């Protein structure tokens, strides 16, 4: 279900540690986007992104002027170039700024990774001419920049992304309410968070988003230490959101942790499947370009699956 994407040509910042050392968020995003573009152009699977990217499959009725003849000649497949006027895609990036996002066993935190991801998406979409909006949230919705495509908007988004995180927990219903209350136009919604929240709290807002016809993608950024629980000395674990301290011996705790974690992930995935939402796991140790390619592959397979489901 998750076809291996071709690995993009590695840029100088394929190593996320090196990338995160770049202080400027804009420069970071630009680096990833450029690397991603290069990789995308070299990828034999380029064009998976369909309606998301500037290419989408030709369907009868599309203006033949926009058919990509080169691709047709090479791959014997019909794609059309999509221009801004035609795509009219509105994107919302929802970024979780809660404290748990501040965790990182590497030299950078999940939040740094997520910010870079959000900035990259914003720049990528902006370069395509799409309207991009940003909504940061913790327990309440914070900054809201409605989707626009005009000069300076991208910088406003990047500036908003650079603001420090203040909140404690994460509650998805506030930003979702904000989006739903502001715009009735359907569009893409990227929710970037660690989703380390009880599934019961996620279900209602995600259902609401999906029900309103938004194309929702959950980008779950997780630290490798959270995925594999790589602790082995007895320490006091302090919950970053609640402040609760629990002394624990990781060796004895690991099995239980991994089991519960796996259950949570499975539950999240099945929730997403039920709602037709793309769930994409992004371990922070993974290069962002790879993560984006994987994401595009996932979208493609999701589209196929949905198509299959609908056709069957």
């Amino acid at each position, binding site marked *: 279900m998750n076809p291996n994407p071709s690995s993009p040509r590695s840029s100088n910042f394929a190593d996320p540690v090196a990338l995160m050392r770049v202080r400027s968020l804009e420069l970071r995003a630009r680096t990833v986007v450029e690397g991603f573009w290069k990789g995308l152009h070299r990828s034999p699977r380029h064009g998976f992104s369909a309606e998301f990217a500037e290419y989408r499959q030709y369907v009868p009725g599309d203006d033949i002027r926009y058919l990509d003849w080169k691709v047709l000649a090479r791959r014997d497949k019909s794609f059309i170039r999509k221009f801004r006027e035609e795509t009219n895609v509105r994107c919302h990036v929802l970024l979780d700024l809660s404290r*748990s*996002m*501040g*965790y*990182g*066993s*590497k030299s950078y935190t*999940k939040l740094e990774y997520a910010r870079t991801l959000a900035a990259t998406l914003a720049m990528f979409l902006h370069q395509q001419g799409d309207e991009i909006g940003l909504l940061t949230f913790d327990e309440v919705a914070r900054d809201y920049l409605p989707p626009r495509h005009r000069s300076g908007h991208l910088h406003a988004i990047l500036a908003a992304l650079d603001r420090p995180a203040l909140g404690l927990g994460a509650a998805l219903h506030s930003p979702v309410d904000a989006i739903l209350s502001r715009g009735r136009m359907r569009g893409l919604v990227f929710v970037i968070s*660690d989703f*380390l929240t*009880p599934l019961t709290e996620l279900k209602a807002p995600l259902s609401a988003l999906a029900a309103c016809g938004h194309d929702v993608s959950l980008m779950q950024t997780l*630290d490798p*230490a*959270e995925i594999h629980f*790589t*602790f*082995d*000395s*007895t*320490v*006091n*674990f*302090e*919950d*970053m*959101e*609640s402040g*609760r*301290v*629990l*002394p*624990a*011996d*990781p*060796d*004895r*705790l690991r099995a*239980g*942790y991994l089991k*519960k*974690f796996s259950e*949570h992930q499975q539950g999240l995935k099945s929730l997403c499947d039920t709602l037709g939402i793309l769930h994409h796991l992004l371990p922070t140790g993974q290069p962002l370009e790879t993560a984006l390619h994987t994401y595009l592959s996932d979208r493609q397979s999701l589209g196929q699956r949905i198509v299959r489901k609908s056709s069957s």
Partner: protein
Amino acid sequence: MAFLAPFFLAGLAALALPVLLHLRKNRPKETVAFSSLMFFEDHPPITKRRARLQDILLLILRCAALALMVLAFARPFFPAKENSPAPPTGATTHFILIDTSASMRGEPEEKAIAAAREEIEKLPKDDAIAVATFSDRLHILLDPERARGLVPGERKSTALALLGEVQADWQATHLDDAILSAVAAAGGDTPLHLHLFGDFQKGSTLDRLRNESWPDALRIVLHPTAPADSRTNAGVQMLPPEKQVRRARVTNAAGSAKSAFTLEWSGTAVKTTISVPAGESAIFDAPEGVPTEGKVTLTGDDYAFDNEASWTTSALPVVKIWHPSPSEVTDTTETTYFLHRAMQPTADYSVEIIDTPTTEAPALTITDGKPGDVSALRKVIEDGGTALLTLRDVSAAKVLEDLVQVTDATPTEAKVKDHARFGEIDFKSPVFAPFADPRYSDFSGIRIWKYRVLPEKLVSPGKVLARFDNGDPAWLSYPLGKGTLHVLTTTWRPADSQLALTTKFAPLLHSLIANAGQGRGVYFVGYDGIDAPGIHASGNRRIAIQIDPAESELTPLPEADLRALGLPLDEPVIAKANAMTATLSSAEQESRQRTGWWLLVAAALFYLAETAWAALAGNRANPATS
């Protein structure tokens, strides 16, 4: 095992501390922030077997180190068995030393004698009892050898009878000399108990007790005469006159209760009221019209022994220095020029440099070895004079050969690379003693460009007081007849050395004058055999003798000061009359066995092991946390 300070064992209760810490240590010290504890079990087990094992070893190490420290502070020792063989009866010699210095005059002396009498009564009848008094030196009344020879029945009575002869004099207290002389007089390996009776005043000299090693069998028992609770002692000393005005210095001892006194000068009816705070001194000029000879009297304090000081002739003594074959006084390259500059009049005397010997023997003779009348020089020295011969060149050593009557000895000019320095100096020698204080003892800055190396034949008759840094003799002294010949193997000419240009030069020459026994403006008891203060005849002149100002300092000497000098002080150890065993005191056993010291070493080792093990365990900590 017994303990000298068993109350320290209460510190063992502190062992609970590492145990508590160990229990607490089960809870991890490090706190790691984690994104969410939602996947954690609610009550997770927090220990693991490996950690527990490590902690137990650490606990054992820590407890052991702490326990060893506590035991060390309790000063353990292994007491000698009660039934161990007793030392031979009468093996202990008790040496009774009674302070008879000036400060003991009167009531203190009576108290000391009474205390000594009481002490002797308590001593076992079989122990030997020797008796001596001390002030500036030890006066043995019954020496230990003779005391041991007495039959046991007579020992106490003999000692008690000798106490009747004890009488205070006017000397200063030389406690160091008294103790050292008594230990030397007792000799042998038999146990010796020195019983010191006196006021143990701060003015006592202790210098010679430093760095002294003491026989194991020696115990020193102090019997201080109890001073009155509030007492005042002030002393008066005459100073050399300044501009023909007589001056007296009044010193009030530290701890005195009063500070107001009166001064009365003979020949005048005026009584001056003066105020000198405790622990300080002040100088007072005599009123006009005092006679050429008289005394000043201080009143108002509790001790009379130091309340009078005399003066006599007003003229400063003149010290004559014979300097044969002088060069031009203005020639800055020669010794004579510097000699004249160094020999300025002092507060105590003035100096006259003469080039021909007079009928009166010169105080000092200084020659640089120019050919001259060696026989006259020899006669001056042998008659009791002091001479300094500086070797200006190899041929000057001929004078030395003639004086010490050594033949076929050929001195050589030293091959000095760059320069030589003074290396080894005998600061106990009278010439260099004034420089013994570390503030003045650095001669290493004086550079010597040229000197003469004397052959062994010329060195051996004398005593080397100073050497250059390569070991060659620099200063030698030769006894000749009644006098002394000093030889400096270089000179203070600028061509030879820097000596004349240094601060050491003039004090060195004046030290020679003082050693010649001349030139003092102030004379203390003991000078020329005079044993009482006042005006006395010395030779053909009259001199005023006073007591040593240090004797006026009656503040009691802290016992800790004596202990700091390493003196084996202890409580009196008297064998019980009915017991045949005489065990060493607990403190002595403890200090000999040094068990506590070894326990401390062991504790340190345990702490090292603990640190190493803790570091090892710490390295295993997981770095996977942020």
